[in-house]
């Protein structure tokens, strides 16, 4: 049953990706990329990575879609038609082939020999009930063991917001002040 669900989701994912490439209407592209994120979130749930699925659904399908709509409102609604060329297809096929070749060396899905299960994971799973005692291992690792990393991530998010404010909305105040100054001069 799980295999059927996973395969169905992957087929949907490919179908949405093809639709994104073929549509010229940017509104449809934005909506389809939101759909793409939602299907990815479902795949993450099928892999039992609920925290990642949560983030993908909230950020990928929610915020990104809104921001892309906002960007679209500032530009055009339709992609410019371009002459057809075989080079992009060639690049995609070669990159895809290299990626598939790379996965051949990876351990099988769910294999107990995978590095993910043998490196630090058993160590954390053994220590967390004793030292922190919260049921969600991901939160314990992110907020406590790797608290410094997470502080860095928060600062990155803050800096991103600061950059957007400086570039897009901070200019208004400066303009108003300079307008006022020029009125005084005039």
């Amino acid at each position, binding site marked *: 049953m799980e295999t059927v669900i996973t395969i169905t989701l992957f087929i949907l994912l490919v179908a949405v990706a093809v639709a994104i490439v073929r549509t010229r209407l940017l*509104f449809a592209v934005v909506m389809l990329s939101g759909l793409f994120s939602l299907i990815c979130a479902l795949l993450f749930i099928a892999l039992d990575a*609920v*925290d990642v*699925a*949560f*983030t993908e659904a*909230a*950020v990928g399908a*929610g*915020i990104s879609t*809104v*921001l892309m709509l*906002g*960007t679209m*409102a*500032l530009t055009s*609604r339709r992609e410019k038609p371009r002459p057809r060329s075989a080079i992009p297809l060639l690049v995609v096929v070669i990159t895809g082939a290299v990626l598939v070749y790379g996965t051949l060396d990876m351990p099988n899905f769910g294999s107990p020999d995978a590095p993910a299960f043998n490196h630090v994971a058993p160590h954390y799973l053994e220590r967390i009930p004793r*030292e*922190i*005692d*919260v*049921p*969600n291992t*991901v*939160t*314990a690792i*992110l*907020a*406590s063991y790797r*608290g*410094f990393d*997470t*502080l860095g*991530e*928060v*600062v990155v*998010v*803050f800096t*991103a*917001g*600061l950059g*957007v*404010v400086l*570039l*897009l*909305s901070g200019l*208004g105040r400066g303009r108003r002040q300079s307008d006022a100054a020029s009125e005084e001069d005039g």
Partner: protein
Amino acid sequence: MEHHLILRVITKLLVPPILLFGLYVQFHGDFGPGGGFQAGVIFAVAFILYGLVFTLDEVQRVFPPWLVHKLAALGVLVYAGVGVLNLMAGAKFLDYNALANDAISAQHWGILAVEFGVGLTVAAVMVTIYYAFAGRPPRMSDEDW
């Protein structure tokens, strides 16, 4: 979007549950899936939805830009402040064990405070970015979609 009656009614119904769900994800993050990042985004989405359906001016009356900018900085301060608090309690930076009498409840308090900082910053930054994009002319008319 003044003539979209269904959108306006549904949005009014949806915003409170979204805010509540954001708070649940925020403070239940140690027990279930979720945490500050996801909660912050969900909390911000409630304001963005309100802004999309009603106007940007309406949502900025509820959540003015100066407040959003300050909250973004406050979140980082809360997070780093917890670290400094640990330093003053005699432990290492962001080592929560010294925050309470026994180490496990100290860890719980530390995680809760730090996640609160994360949620605050993420929610404020998401709303800030939305304000920045939506505040720029030209506004699209409904017929253009």
